[in-house]
């Protein structure tokens, strides 16, 4: 049981990274209805960019910013150049899964071909450590939590208080109706990809700030917990995704501490399967629907 409190600390950091990634994933999936399985590999690509930036002697916080910009630009590019053309051509649900897996394979192995299949780590200072209720955080880890909180707040403000946010929620609920109400859904979809990509890039850099080393498959391995958090929260429900991320992040670290680190991922796997089979609409969807009806 002595491991439990530190595990909660690790869980909180994992959950922060996961929350940023899952909100991005959920937002994009909700608006565009494409289950983008290359999401984790975009994270990896952002991580490699961060690696290059920190190697060049720049601060890791610059890397976070560049990672966000790269993620946004690349996601919009990917959607415009690959996904949307396939959808226009009539590729449907299952076909799109194959397309996104193909993209994932190409990216993962392309990165491996460029950077070689070895371990990489960011060149950065982790700062002094802080003790807090028995949990220990480095400065960098507190930074990750801060980034997550700020990103979530910005997304919240954007979705709730801007016209763009409303247009996005409308498109997520019913794209055809939104279009006939005069919402430029194509532009909304671009924005969704950009926003989701930016979060993906941030999460990618944050992920490798938190672990000692990474490879070309790191982001891909992180994909299932992301999907699990997004699905658990209800697809297209950013607040649900945050909740899902907290549950999955903390549950997997606690399981790692109590059972075995080997089964860290399995917790997310099992949660995802159970949710998909029992309640594919996620835990928060009903509350959210009611809220939409009232508002």
């Amino acid at each position, binding site marked *: 049981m002595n491991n439990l409190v530190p595990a909660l600390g690790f869980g909180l950091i994992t959950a922060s990274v996961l929350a940023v990634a899952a909100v991005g994933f959920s937002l994009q999936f909700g608006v565009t209805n494409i*289950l983008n399985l290359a999401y984790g590999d975009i994270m990896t690509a952002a991580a490699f960019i961060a690696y290059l930036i920190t190697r060049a002697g720049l601060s890791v916080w610059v890397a976070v910013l560049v990672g966000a910009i790269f993620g946004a630009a690349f996601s919009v590019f990917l959607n415009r150049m*690959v996904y949307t*053309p*396939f959808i226009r*051509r009539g*590729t449907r*649900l*299952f*076909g*799109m*899964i*194959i*397309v996104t*897996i*193909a*993209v*994932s*394979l*190409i990216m*993962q*192995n*392309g990165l*491996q*071909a460029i950077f*070689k*299949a070895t371990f990489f780590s960011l060149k950065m200072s982790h700062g002094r450590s802080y003790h807090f209720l028995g949990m220990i955080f480095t400065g960098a880890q507190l930074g990750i939590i801060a980034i997550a909180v700020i990103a979530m707040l910005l997304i919240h403000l954007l979705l709730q208080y801007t016209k763009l946010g409303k247009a996005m929620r409308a498109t997520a609920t019913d794209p055809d109706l939104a279009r006939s109400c005069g919402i430029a859904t194509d532009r909304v979809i671009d924005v969704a990809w950009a926003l989701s990509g930016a979060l993906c890039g941030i999460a990618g850099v944050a992920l490798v700030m938190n672990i000692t080393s990474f490879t070309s498959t790191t982001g891909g391995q992180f994909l*299932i917990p992301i*999907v699990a958090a997004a699905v658990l929260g209800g697809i297209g429900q950013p607040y649900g995704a945050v909740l899902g991320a907290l549950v999955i992040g903390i549950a997997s670290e606690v399981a790692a501490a109590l059972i*075995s680190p*080997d*089964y860290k*991922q*399995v917790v997310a*796997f*099992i949660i*995802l*399967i159970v949710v*998909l*089979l029992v309640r*594919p609409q996620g835990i928060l969807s009903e509350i959210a629907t009611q809220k939409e009806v009232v508002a």
Partner: protein
Amino acid sequence: MSLAMQFYLSTLLIYLGIDVMACWGLNLQFGVTGLVNFAYVVFQAAGAYTAAVLTLGPSSGNGGFQRYIGGTHWPFPLPIIAAGAVGGLLSLAFGAIALRRLRSDYQAMVMLVMSLIATSVVTNQEGLFNGPNGLSIVPKPLASVLNLSLNAYQWFFVALTGLFCLLVYLFVHLVTGSPLGRALRSVRENESAAAALGKNVAGLRLLAFVSGGVIAGISGALLVEFISAWSPGSWLFPETFVFFAALIVGGAGNNFGAMLGALLVPIAFLEATRFMPAFGYPGLVDALQWVVVGVLTLIFLWFWPRGVVPERKRRFADAGFSARHPRPEPPAVSVAASQDQSPVKSESVILQVRDLHRDFGGVKAVDGATFAVPLGRITGLIGPNGAGKSTAVTMIAGGLKPSSGSIRFLDEDVTGRASYQMARLGVIRTFQISSEFARLTVMENLLVAAQNHPGEKMHTVLLGKWSWRHHETELLDRARALLVRFDMAHMEDEYAGNLSGGQKRLLELMRALMAQPRLLLLDEPMAGVHPTLARRIEQILLDLRDEGMTMLMVEHELQVVERLCDPVVVMARGRVISRGTMEQIRSDQGVLDAYLVG
């Protein structure tokens, strides 16, 4: 041929045989039945581990350098057969959990995650199959008995693989070419329509899933007996993607396409290059191979989404039908089921609905509907939009379970029965939105509707074509008579997806009649068709009634109802507010109010 060349060639042939076999199994699941089994390689792995431990002997007997469960020395070919059995059993377990009604991308996700879980468990539970290092030095089958040279043994293994390929081909060929294969494809095209025609969708999907699992298990066994080693690294998730890529490139739904795909993707791009001179740093070629496979898949999905050899169109020989039935005179083939199958006990009422309720999360779609459908008439079901007519019909057809209330058909309580069970009792429905099996021909759409086809049973299928051909010929005659009657004979070999909207409505009706219903449920059979065609459908329905067919019809056009239906049931807000002849209903103030308000 030099010995090295022989070795190279025979190795490739063995890999090819194994991959072809695996692709046939996946084709049965994905290409034919539409199941997105992203855990396919797990079943191959299960077969491989099974065969390995059954050949290796007890775990302690090899110096203890590898630990595993269930080690014994079984003689060839028992380990391979057991591998097939394990692949099938594991499929049964996976299928029971995962083959729910989920969006196909969610289902793919469930399977993918199950594949990752399997890898994780086998890697981390070292006592199971020696953990991440896996099993090695698996003895080759009959190697000690035959005592052949290395190359001779290679060719022996080629022959062995060929033999298993032949067996598997025979199986998939029999299945895909049979009425069972047709039923599987109908499930792929439209689940609910297949169920409404009496197909046990869950059963058929599981059948295809388990059959594919057995084949995957056998392919895994051969693989491990050949390469002598097996570890979690051999069956990571991307390996499943290779099989899918092979099917997409070769042509899903076509056994030759699957074979060609196996030749192109796993062999030409992955295996053959292993013998090429390596360039760059170690691992570069591997990474580039995967990039190529990904790009290849995208290119094919873009330019040839049906693959190099698309699914074959099934045409049916005209066994002298047109000679026996010259076109101008439609043959007098009755479409109604003979009513003596089970006598109707209570006087002339075939269906009785009592106090039927159905809620959708608080919305009361049907709220206490009670009505009866008399034998041999067309009962009209009318009412304003949202009255609950379609929901009521769907419940009668078994597509939805009632929240409460009862449905009696032929004096039997059938409340809450599944769609396919209702269809087998003779309650056949048509859908408001055309529900044709798009990539089946018009003729196949009709044939698939036939009830009790012996060719849809696996044991009959395995006996060969002659065991069901006779029945099929009779059905062909009946279907052609229907086509002539509906003036659609020229469209027999057209894909149903290519028909016009009106033709699809006709097909929907013909398909329902092909099932020889005792009660035909029609949900707006004339919705959205040209007025001329609507009149024709009307006449057809009248003729059917005169031949003794009982119908319950949801319809909006009151003039049509007036001409066809007696009695008429009026629903509003989930309740029956009036019933009688159209004339009586016209004078009912409550009905007028409901229409004006609703």
